[in-house]
């Protein structure tokens, strides 16, 4: 399967589940792996988050690289370092190959240096292989204020404060198209019911500006409205609030992401059916779907 043979930008979902991996019959369709998305444009390969889904991506990248006999140059952008977003990294096979060059990007505004966090999860109390045995050329880069340019893709980002310990949202801009990855954020605190402070209003404006007109927005939609009322402060959004925000920012295609571990395929199908009729029929159409593993879109 050739992942990079087309000139279009290809976005593939390798893990869409939030919080913890959920293998099993009832999650087979949308998938049980935790967050990982790849963005390919010709030879530029970007990975966003290293949840358990990155394991399958690694195997696929190696299959392709072995076929061509070429080294891999990969760029991994981390939204944050909670387990479900980094736990697949020790199982990412290209990291055990000397010819791989892997640059890992993350926020510089954390209490601990990004490298320490990643190294910590491979401490021998947690994992049998230490990070130093990853033979790839690995560079860990805490991002500065400057935009990053990788081949034809330019990346901008913003810190998100409405998640415990924070997270980063990314914008990937390529040939006039914009893909936004903005998960692990509690939008209800900015857009939900109740009076908002000036700071919350400002954060809401910044968010809307960032996602405005995105060709694809991959957004946290972990909870239903009913579930959210018992999970305030957990750092995740309720689906209706995400839909309203994306629609008002004229997002063209919205992928609901970071599915709750308790949500079965049947439940997610029902949620999709319930909401798509509402947002699919308006005059400024927003294409809406629930992200699922093994799905590749062209942007």
């Amino acid at each position, binding site marked *: *399967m050739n992942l990079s043979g*087309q000139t*279009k930008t*290809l976005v*593939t979902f390798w893990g869409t589940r939030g919080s913890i991996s959920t293998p099993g019959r009832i999650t*087979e*369709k949308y998938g049980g792996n935790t967050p990982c998305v790849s963005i390919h444009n010709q030879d530029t390969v970007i990975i966003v988050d290293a949840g358990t889904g990155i394991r399958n991506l690694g195997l696929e990248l190696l299959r392709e690289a072995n076929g061509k006999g070429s080294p891999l140059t990969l760029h991994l952008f981390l939204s944050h370092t909670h387990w479900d977003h980094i736990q697949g990294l020790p199982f990412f096979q290209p990291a055990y190959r000397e010819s791989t060059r892997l640059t890992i990007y993350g926020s510089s505004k954390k209490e601990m240096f990004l490298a320490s966090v990643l190294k910590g999860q491979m401490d021998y109390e947690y994992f049998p292989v230490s990070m130093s045995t990853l033979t790839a050329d690995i560079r860990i880069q805490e991002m500065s204020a400057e935009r990053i340019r990788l081949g034809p893709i330019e990346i901008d980002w913003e810190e998100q404060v409405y998640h415990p310990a924070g997270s980063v949202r990314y914008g990937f801009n390529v040939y006039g198209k914009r893909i936004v990855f903005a998960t692990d954020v509690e939008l209800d605190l900015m857009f939900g019911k109740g009076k908002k402070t000036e700071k919350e209003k400002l954060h809401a404006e910044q968010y809307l500006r960032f996602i405005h007109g995105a060709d694809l927005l991959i957004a946290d939609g972990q909870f239903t409205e009913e579930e959210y009322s018992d999970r305030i402060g957990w750092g995740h959004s309720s689906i209706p609030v995400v839909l309203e925000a994306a629609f008002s920012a004229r997002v063209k295609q919205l992928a609901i992401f970071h599915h709750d571990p308790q949500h079965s395929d049947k439940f997610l199908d029902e949620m999709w059916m319930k909401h*798509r009729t509402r947002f699919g029929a308006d005059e400024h159409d927003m*294409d809406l*779907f629930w992200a699922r*593993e*093994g*799905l*590749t*879109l*062209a942007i």
Partner: protein
Amino acid sequence: MTKWAEKRDGFTTTVEMVRVNIPESVPVRERAYLQILSPQERKRVIELGEKDIVIGRSPECDIRFIVENVSRKHARVFFHNEEFMIEDLESTNGLFVNGVKIVRCALRNNDQIDLGGVKLLFNEEKRLQPR
């Protein structure tokens, strides 16, 4: 199914595990197929195997639909990593799975595929295979 037999010696309890019934069969994929849903097309079922299947308007295709909106070579179904995938062969009108325009997608039971207005349903069935 296992049967547990307890033996007490006064101090500890030893549990002997006795295998009384070994499963005689395991579930395996029996068949996977595409069912044509469009009323204008002849009702038939397309069996899927490990060989690639190309769908389109051209006579070279394994599955042919003489429909204007179907490209000459529109889509390919292939078996990869123990699952069936479908991919768009750069068709003019695109390939949709459950209404989402895709380039490639791992197929799951009851996925609805739309290519140029022709609608197909993907199905997989499993049966018990004797050991």
